[in-house]
C-alpha cells in the first residue's frame, strides 16, 4: 500500500469522527462515541506512521511528497510587486516532508494517547460526545495545519485549532471563569492572527504564491540572481508579521496571557492543545518559514530575545504558583520560549527537536496532574495535597519520569533537546552568551518549580482534608496506560537526536536538513568549538538544574509550604510573582479598560445623540400628525362624504336595475348580442 499518496486521508478521519459524534453523538452510547473518536485518531496515526516509514526509504533529497486533491482557489491575475503576472491560485494539497512527518507523528501519536486517557477522565461528564467531537475537530484542524502545502491551508488549520481551543477552554461553559478564559484566549489569538494574515498577504504580494516550496524556491533564486538581499525590509516585515502570529498561538510575550487562563478547560485538553500540539503551531510555522527568517537576521534576533525573555519570565511566575495546572501552564510558556530561542539563533532543528520531546513529557505531566486532580476530586491546589506517593503510585512514578525529563536529567528526553538549544544559543553565530545565560537560569528554575510541584503533591505530610482523604484512588487503566506509554516516550524520545559530542550522529537534525537547507548567503565566520566545550556547557546546565532541585528539596520536601516563609525569602518580589507580574492588570489598564471605555462612550453617544435625534424626530412627527389628522377628518373626509351623498341622492332611479341576479345580467347581455346580430343581418343596406 502506498501510504504516501494517502496522506490526504490523515486529516479526513478525525473530520469524519467529528461529523458523526457532533451530529448524532448525543443519541449514541458513550462507548460508541469514545470508540469512534479514538478510532479515527488511531487510523490517522497508522496512516501517518506508514507514510513516514515510506518517506524514510526515499533519498534525503527526494523526501517531499505532495498530494494535490484539487485546485481550491483560482482567482484572476493579481498584482504583485513582481508585476501583474501572478494568478492567485491555491491548491488543496498536502505536503509530507521531514518537518511535517514529525509534526503528524507527534499530533496523531500523542493525540491518540490523550483520546484514550480522556475516555477515563471524562467518563462522568454530561457533554461526553461534545468533548470528543471538539477533540476530533481539533485533530482535523491541527493535521490540516501541519500537512497543508501552502500558507492558506496552514491558516485554515491555524484558525481551526484556535476555534477548538476556544470551544474546549469553555467546555465548562456554566462556569463564568471558563467562559471568560475562552473569550480571552480567542481575543488574544485574534491579535496574533492579525499579524499572521498580514504576513501571508505580504508573502503573496512579494512572491506571487503561497506554496511553501514555490516561495522557498523563489527566495533561493532571488538570492542567487541578486534580486533579494539579506535584511531587505520586506523580509523583515514578513518575518515580524508571522512572528506576531506565532506569539499569539504559541503564547510568547506579549500575548502569552491567555495560556495560563486556558487551564480552565478539562485537563486532557490542556495536555493536548495547550501543551503538546496547538501551542507549538507557532514554532512549526516559523520553522516552516525558515527561508524567510534566514533573510531577516534582525527578525531572528527579535525571535531569540522574545523567546529567551518569555522562558525566563514565565519560569519566574511558575516558581510560586500553587495551582498544579498553572505551574504546568507557565512551564509550557517557558518551554515554548526555549523553542523560539532555538529558532531565533538559527537552530531550527533544535527547536523542532525540543518541540517533540516537550510534547512527550509535558503531555505526560499534564495527564499526570489530571490523574492527581481526578483522585483528589477536582482539587487543584497543591497546598491541599501532599503524601500522595503511596496512594497513587502509577501517577507518581510516571510524573517523576516527566519531571526528571523536563528538568534536564542526563539520559532523558529533555536533556538532549534542551542542551542542544542552550549550546546553539551560545555557539551559533546568531547566538550570544547572554542568551545562553538566560537559558541556563531557566533550566535551574525549571528544575526548581517542577520538583516543588512534585514534592508538594506527593511528599511531605498530607494536607488533604478529611473527607477527600478516604476517596483518593488510583485512576482507571485507560488513564494510567497512556501515562506509562508517555513516560517511556519521555525517556527514549531524546535518543533519536543523540548529539555528536557524546559520539552520536544526531540523526534528528540530519533528517530535517532538507527542510532547513541554509540559503546561499554569507553568515560570517562560524566559530569553532570543540566537543569538550559543548560537554562543559552541558555539565554546567546540569549543575544549575541540580541546584534548582536541591533548593526545591530543602524548601518543600524537608519542610512544608508556608506562606510566611515564602514572603520572607522572596521579599518584595513575592506579590509580583504570585500575581503574575500583574501583566493581566496592566493589559486591563492599557487595552481592556480602554476598549470598554470606548464601548461605554459609544453607548452614551448612542443613548444621548442618536436616540435623542430619533426621539426628537418622533415627537415632531406626532405633533404634525395631530394637525394632519384634523385636516384629514374634517376637510378631506368631509369632501368625500359630501360627494358620495350627493351622488347617492341623484342616482336612486338607476339603482333599481341592479337586481343582483346574475341571470338578469346575462339576459341583458344576450339581448344586446341579439340586437347586434340583427343589426348585422338586416340593418346594413
Amino acid at each position, binding site marked *: 500500500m502506498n501510504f504516501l499518496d494517502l496522506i490526504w486521508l490523515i486529516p479526513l478521519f478525525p473530520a469524519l469522527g467529528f461529523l458523526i459524534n457532533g451530529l448524532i453523538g448525543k443519541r449514541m452510547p458513550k462507548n460508541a462515541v469514545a470508540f469512534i473518536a479514538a478510532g479515527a485518531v488511531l487510523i490517522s496515526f497508522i496512516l501517518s506512521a506508514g507514510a513516514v516509514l515510506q518517506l524514510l526509504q526515499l533519498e534525503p533529497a527526494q523526501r517531499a511528497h505532495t498530494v494535490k486533491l484539487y485546485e481550491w482557489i483560482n482567482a484572476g491575475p493579481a498584482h504583485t510587486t513582481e508585476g501583474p503576472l501572478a494568478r492567485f491560485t491555491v491548491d488543496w494539497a498536502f505536503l509530507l516532508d521531514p518537518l511535517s512527518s514529525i509534526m503528524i507523528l507527534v499530533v496523531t501519536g500523542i493525540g491518540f494517547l490523550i483520546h484514550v486517557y480522556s475516555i477515563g477522565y471524562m467518563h462522568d461528564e454530561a457533554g461526553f460526545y461534545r468533548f470528543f467531537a471538539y477533540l476530533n475537530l481539533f485533530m482535523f484542524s491541527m493535521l490540516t495545519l501541519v500537512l497543508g502545502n501552502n500558507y492558506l491551508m496552514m491558516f485554515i488549520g491555524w484558525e481551526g485549532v484556535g476555534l477548538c481551543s476556544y470551544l474546549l477552554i469553555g467546555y465548562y461553559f456554566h462556569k463564568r471563569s471558563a467562559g471568560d478564559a475562552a473569550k480571552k484566549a480567542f481575543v488574544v489569538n485574534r491579535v496574533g492572527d492579525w499579524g499572521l494574515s498580514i504576513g501571508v498577504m505580504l508573502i503573496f504580494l512579494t512572491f506571487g504564491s503561497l506554496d511553501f516550496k514555490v516561495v522557498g524556491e523563489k527566495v533561493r533564486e532571488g538570492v542567487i540572481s541578486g534580486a533579494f538581499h539579506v535584511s531587505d525590509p520586506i523580509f523583515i516585515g514578513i518575518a515580524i508579521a508571522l512572528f506576531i502570529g506565532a506569539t499569539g498561538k504559541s503564547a510568547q510575550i506579549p500575548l502569552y496571557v491567555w495560556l495560563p487562563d486556558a487551564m480552565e478547560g478539562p485537563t486532557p485538553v490542556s495536555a493536548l492543545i495547550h501543551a503538546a500540539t496547538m501551542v507549538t503551531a507557532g514554532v512549526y510555522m516559523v520553522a516552516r518559514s525558515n527561508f524567510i527568517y534566514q533573510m531577516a537576521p534582525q527578525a531572528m534576533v527579535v525571535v531569540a530575545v522574545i523567546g529567551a525573555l518569555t522562558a525566563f519570565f514565565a519560569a519566574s511566575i511558575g516558581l510560586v504558583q500553587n495551582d498544579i495546572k498553572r505551574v504546568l501552564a507557565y512551564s509550557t510558556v517557558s518551554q515554548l520560549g526555549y523553542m523560539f530561542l532555538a529558532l531565533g539563533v538559527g537552530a531550527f532543528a533544535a527547536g523542532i527537536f525540543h518541540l517533540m520531546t516537550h510534547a512527550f513529557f509535558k503531555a505526560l505531566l499534564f495527564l499526570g496532574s489530571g490523574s492527581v486532580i481526578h483522585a483528589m476530586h477536582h482539587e487543584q491546589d497543591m497546598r491541599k495535597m501532599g503524601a500522595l506517593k503511596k496512594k497513587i503510585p502509577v501517577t507518581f512514578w510516571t510524573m517523576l519520569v516527566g519531571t526528571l525529563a523536563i528538568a534536564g536529567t542526563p539520559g532523558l528526553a529533555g536533556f538532549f533537546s534542551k542542551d542542544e538549544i542552550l549550546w546553539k544559543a551560545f555557539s551559533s553565530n546568531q547566538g550570544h552568551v547572554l542568551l545562553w545565560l538566560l537559558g541556563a537560569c531557566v533550566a535551574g528554575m525549571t528544575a526548581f518549580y517542577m520538583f516543588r510541584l512534585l514534592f508538594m503533591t506527593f511528599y511531605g505530610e498530607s494536607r488533604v482534608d478529611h473527607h477527600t482523604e478516604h476517596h483518593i484512588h488510583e485512576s482507571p487503566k485507560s488513564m494510567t496506560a497512556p501515562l506509562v506509554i508517555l513516560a517511556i516516550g519521555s525517556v527514549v524520545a531524546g535518543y533519536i537526536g543523540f548529539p555528536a559530542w557524546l559520539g552520536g550522529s544526531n540523526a534528528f537534525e540530519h533528517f530535517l536538513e532538507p527542510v532547513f537547507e541554509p540559503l546561499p548567503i554569507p553568515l560570517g565566520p562560524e566559530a569553532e568549538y570543540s566537543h569538550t566545550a559543548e560537554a562543559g556547557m552541558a555539565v554546567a546546565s546540569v549543575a544549575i538544574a541540580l541546584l534548582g532541585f536541591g533548593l526545591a528539596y530543602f524548601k518543600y520536601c524537608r519542610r512544608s509550604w508556608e506562606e510566611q516563609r515564602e514572603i520572607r525569602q522572596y521579599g518584595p518580589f513575592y506579590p509580583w510573582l504570585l500575581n503574575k507580574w500583574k501583566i493581566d492588570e496592566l493589559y486591563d489598564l492599557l487595552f481592556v479598560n480602554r476598549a470598554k471605555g470606548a464601548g461605554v462612550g459609544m453607548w452614551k453617544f448612542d443613548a444621548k445623540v442618536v436616540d435623542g435625534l430619533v426621539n426628537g424626530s418622533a415627537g415632531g412627527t406626532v405633533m404634525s400628525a395631530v394637525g394632519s389628522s384634523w385636516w384629514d377628518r374634517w376637510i378631506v373626509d368631509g369632501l368625500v362624504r359630501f360627494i358620495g351623498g350627493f351622488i347617492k341622492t341623484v342616482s336612486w332611479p338607476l339603482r333599481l336595475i*341592479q*337586481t*343582483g*341576479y346574475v*341571470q338578469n345580467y346575462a339576459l341583458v347581455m*344576450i339581448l344586446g348580442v341579439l340586437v347586434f346580430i340583427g343589426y348585422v343581418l338586416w340593418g346594413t343596406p
Partner: protein
Amino acid sequence: MVTTFHYLLLSAALFTIGVIGVLTRRNIMIILMSIELMMNAVNINLIAFSDRLQQVTGQVFAIFVITVAAAEAAVGLGIVIAMFKNKETMNINEIDLMKW
C-alpha cells in the same frame, strides 16, 4: 352527406340550449353544465371550420377551450362548494350579493 352546415346547425342548437339553460335554470349545477354545453358548441364550430378550411388552427383552439373548460370546472365547482357551505342552498335566486 354531413356538411359543414349540419355541424353549424348542431353547434347553434347546442349553444342555444346552453344559453337557455343559463338564463332560466335556478340550480347552480345545471347552470355550470349549461356553460359546458356552450363551450362544446363552440368546439364543434371550431372543428367544423378547421375541417372545411383544411387548417389545424381550429383544432388547436379546441384543445385550448377544453383545457380552459377543465380549469373552469375546477374553479366553478370550488366556488359552488364554498357557496353551499355558506348559504346551504343551490338556488341562484337566493344568491344576490351583488345587489346594491
